[in-house]
């Protein structure tokens, strides 16, 4: 596998089969994917298409059954041990006994970063997600959207070049979600990070991404990769344009062709 310096994730003929009680489940089947530095890649598909599993394989939270995968030219495990990525889960998963500042500081404490640097990164990243002033609050004192923003700040504080996000806004209402989508896009434009983003919302995927990976279930596989021709700097208004609607249409067609609407 040839890897040039601008390739962040390289996946080749990757499969993952879970052995369940009633027979094997083909979660991922012959996946090929390449993510370049600075890309915003969305994995979209219905439940059971393996999009979360693929993200977990990239994060070394699952091991593939066969095939190759490299992150920054090394194995996912080596990348994880080098703390090469930040991971944001569907739930905020803040630690209830730590206030917001100490939640964001936790990965930094684990990495052994000194207090001064820690405080600086906490301050900066809470500012990035508009949570300055909430340092001393405990998670339960914040709304769901604010908690999720805190968890994004926590992932960013590690200062990874790669951000892996598993339906981070899935549990939030439409209005909060729009707002956070805009913030995330601004953040991405500002930091130039590479993002892999799992979602099952077509508008969200089209609005955020440079590449939309359409997946289909049983077995989990990639059906189509839609390259977005929207400008990198976008506002929510872009969703009214014909270009946006054309992209959304193509993604929808892809999902349909992948028999994703069967059940």
């Amino acid at each position, binding site marked *: 596998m040839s890897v040039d310096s601008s390739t962040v994730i390289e996946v080749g003929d990757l499969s993952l089969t879970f052995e369940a009680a009633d027979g094997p489940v083909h979660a991922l089947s012959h996946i090929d994917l390449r993510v370049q530095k600075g890309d915003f890649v969305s994995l979209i598909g219905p439940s059971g298409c393996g999009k979360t599993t693929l993200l977990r394989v990239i994060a070394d939270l699952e091991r593939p059954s066969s095939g190759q995968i490299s992150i920054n030219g090394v194995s996912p495990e080596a990348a994880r041990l080098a703390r090469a990525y930040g991971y944001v889960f569907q739930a905020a998963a803040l630690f209830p*006994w730590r206030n917001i500042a100490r939640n964001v500081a936790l990965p930094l404490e684990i990495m052994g970063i000194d207090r001064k640097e820690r405080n600086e990164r906490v301050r900066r990243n809470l500012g990035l997600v508009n949570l300055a002033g909430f340092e001393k609050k405990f998670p339960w004192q914040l709304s769901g959207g604010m908690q999720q923003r805190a968890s994004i700040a926590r992932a960013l504080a590690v200062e990874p070049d790669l951000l892996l996000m598993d339906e981070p806004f899935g549990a939030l209402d439409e209005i909060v979600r729009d707002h956070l989508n805009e913030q995330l896009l601004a953040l991405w434009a500002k930091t130039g990070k590479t993002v892999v983003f799992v979602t099952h919302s077509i508008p969200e995927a089209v609005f955020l991404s440079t590449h939309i990976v359409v997946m289909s279930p049983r077995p989990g596989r990639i059906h189509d990769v839609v390259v977005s021709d929207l400008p990198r700097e976008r506002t929510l208004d872009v969703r009214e344009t014909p270009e946006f609607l054309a992209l959304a249409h193509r993604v929808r067609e892809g999902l349909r062709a992948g028999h994703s609407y069967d059940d």
Partner: protein
Amino acid sequence: MTRIWPVAFVLLCIFAIWYAAAFFLNRPFQIDTYGRADRTDWTHAELLADTMRQERPVLPAPHQVAVEIWQTTIEKKITSKRSLVYHASITLSSTLLGFLIGTTLGILLAVAIVHNRSLDASLMPWIIASQTIPILAIAPMIIVVLNAIGIQGLLPKAFISTYLSFFPVVVGMVKGLRTPEVIHLDLMRTWNASPWQVFWNLRWPSSIPFLFTSMKIAIAIALVGAIVGELPTGAVAGLGARLLAGSYYGQTIQIWSALVAASLLAAVLVALVGLADRIVLRRMGLQR
């Protein structure tokens, strides 16, 4: 204020039942006494009053117990062998020592069990079996065996408290240390946290509410253990000794006052653990 009334009502009912029971249980002896004194002119009012002031009643009336407690606490010097405060402090010291050892042992066992699958399978049945043995049967043996190897005084009694109090801590902490959600464990993995960091930053804080719940049970049975431990020691000192001495000499009032003192002590200890619970959880931000 409204929360006081239910408590007061229940208390009132208990006193009413107690007095009624004292009257009926002490009545036969009192009528017997009248008969031996060839008295036939007794009235029911007299009978009622006399059943409440016998020296060795079958069931002492509440005020008799209260007077006994007053006399043996406030009116006696603490250093006196007849002071209930002296006896309670003896029992309290072995309760606290046993509770401390038991809680520490319980936590250590739970940590070992949670981190080692084979320890879980091999230790847990023995831990449960240990509690099915009647403590009254094993207490004298512990005292005798420890005495034979030269351990005397506070420690043997404390060990019996330990024997009882480590159990709820093990069970509670095994549960508590296993409460962290998969998502938190996954996060720790993405940060490449060491097992020690996972324990200290995730498992231990998650288990604190369980620890306090277990400790409330543990401290109450540690007191039971200390009292039971005093019974086979020759009844020298302690609330258990008061109970035993009382039963030797038919001093029912002394027995009941020791019982009441023991239950008050237990209530205070449990309340103290509850207070610590609230303070710690509030500082951890877990209590809203």
